């Protein structure tokens, strides 16, 4: 074990955390909006909209994220004159734009299935009861569908966040120097995989630990009736298991 190398590369890798987090946050934010739209389309009565949403989800979940990233970043270069003509080349030549676009489209497909599952879990009787009280449209969504669906979907969405943290490592293949990118740079220069792996691995595990506890915290906050006193809150925050990541969601 080369302690000096650990000491030298530790700050470099930690300094790359904001890049990783920026990729995660921006793609999750835009992806969530996209996913909500896709989920609504998928559940809509329109045959065209529903099959479009189905096709989108199918295509993006059946192909590797790496292919999607390369297709957007390198593939767009083949049509450079066209993109220059319509003024999009300024964006498509930027690896950050391409990485966020690919990650957004990818998480949008997976997240829309989570949202769809949440919306479908709302019991029909509750909707009928709300309609009988005179609620409809946005009020029905805000008061009945959304609160129930979010509780149902939260554990799965927490996994989605973790998987996106992992997925951002693929941005390193198109020259972005986030944590994995920096780690590879040090690896190629020093050939000391164990040391670099330990630091980078610890960084990812820490981020993911914070995310899982954050999601558990939100789950507890959304079901306050289960945790009345302070002590049971803290016990639950650290003892409650997160939902296991299922394999169909995990593959990128």
């Amino acid at each position, binding site marked *: 074990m080369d302690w000096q190398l650990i000491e030298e590369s530790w700050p470099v890798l930690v300094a790359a955390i904001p890049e990783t987090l920026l990729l995660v946050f921006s793609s999750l934010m835009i992806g969530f909006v996209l996913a909500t739209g896709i989920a609504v389309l998928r559940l809509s009565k329109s045959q065209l909209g529903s099959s479009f949403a189905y096709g989108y989800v199918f295509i993006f979940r059946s192909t590797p994220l790496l*292919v999607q990233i390369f297709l957007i970043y390198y593939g767009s270069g083949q049509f450079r004159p066209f993109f220059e003509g319509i003024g999009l080349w300024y964006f498509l030549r930027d690896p950050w734009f391409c990485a966020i676009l690919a990650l957004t489209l990818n998480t949008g497909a997976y997240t829309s299935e989570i949202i769809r599952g949440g919306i479908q879990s709302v019991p029909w009787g509750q909707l009928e009861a709300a309609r009988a009280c005179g609620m409809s449209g946005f009020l029905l969504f805000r008061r009945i569908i959304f609160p129930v669906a979010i509780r149902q979907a939260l554990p799965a969405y927490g996994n989605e966040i973790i998987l996106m943290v992992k997925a951002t490592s693929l941005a390193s293949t198109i020259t972005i120097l986030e944590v994995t990118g920096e780690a590879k740079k040090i690896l190629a220069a020093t050939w000391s995989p164990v040391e670099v792996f330990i630091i980078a691995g610890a960084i990812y595990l820490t981020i993911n630990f914070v995310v899982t506890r954050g999601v558990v915290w939100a789950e507890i906050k959304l079901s306050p009736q289960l945790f009345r006193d302070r002590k049971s809150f803290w016990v639950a925050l650290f003892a409650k298991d997160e939902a296991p990541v299922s394999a169909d969601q995990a593959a990128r």
Partner: protein
Amino acid sequence: MDLTILGWGDTGWGDEMFYGALMTLAVAACAYALGIAIGTGFAAMKLSGSVSLRVVADLYTTVVRGIPELLIIYLVFFGGGSVLRWVAKGIFGYGEFIDLPLFVTGMVCIGVSAGAYATEVIRGAVLAVPVGQIEAARAIGMSKSKRFWRILVPQVARYALPGLGNVWQLTLKETSLISVIGLVEIMRQATVGAGSTKEPFTFYITAFVLYLCLASLSNRGFIRAEVWANRGVRTT
């Protein structure tokens, strides 16, 4: 976009891409088998009474599922060669430079990562077998190995099938990552083709379609397998 460059034979890249797809399938199949073997072992550890074994298995699944696959691939790629040379020199006294066998490296990387997900799938399947059935088997005098092969294995296989189908999809997609170490599968071949013809879109869209075909065809296979496995199960 000129599709003639995807033709078959010496002038086109169609056959190269096709062989790339075969390589993807081969490495995915081997990694999948390895992943299921690893998953079975760690599931047994997780279900065992021993605390230390459970801790080891928990550590494995937490670490592998918590850090990016790309990082694991880099660890094995940059570190595997020196380990291999150290073993060759120390045990077999072979001092020459040894290249890392790419296929095996890729298989191990993907297999280890698929194994973590397979562990949870198999563990869940074992827990789904009613305890009463094991007790009944014991009551009629079945030996331990007979209980295992006659009661546990057939049912665990059936319960685990949907989850293992998902692990296969994961394995298939993850093989694209080992293109970074240079194994010539779909993704690597597409990169090579894109580099020499300067038509990246043509090649990456071909790779995209190939993965789509592999994924949907194998998905269909798993659905048929599930129907077959559940043929004797009564449904209400």
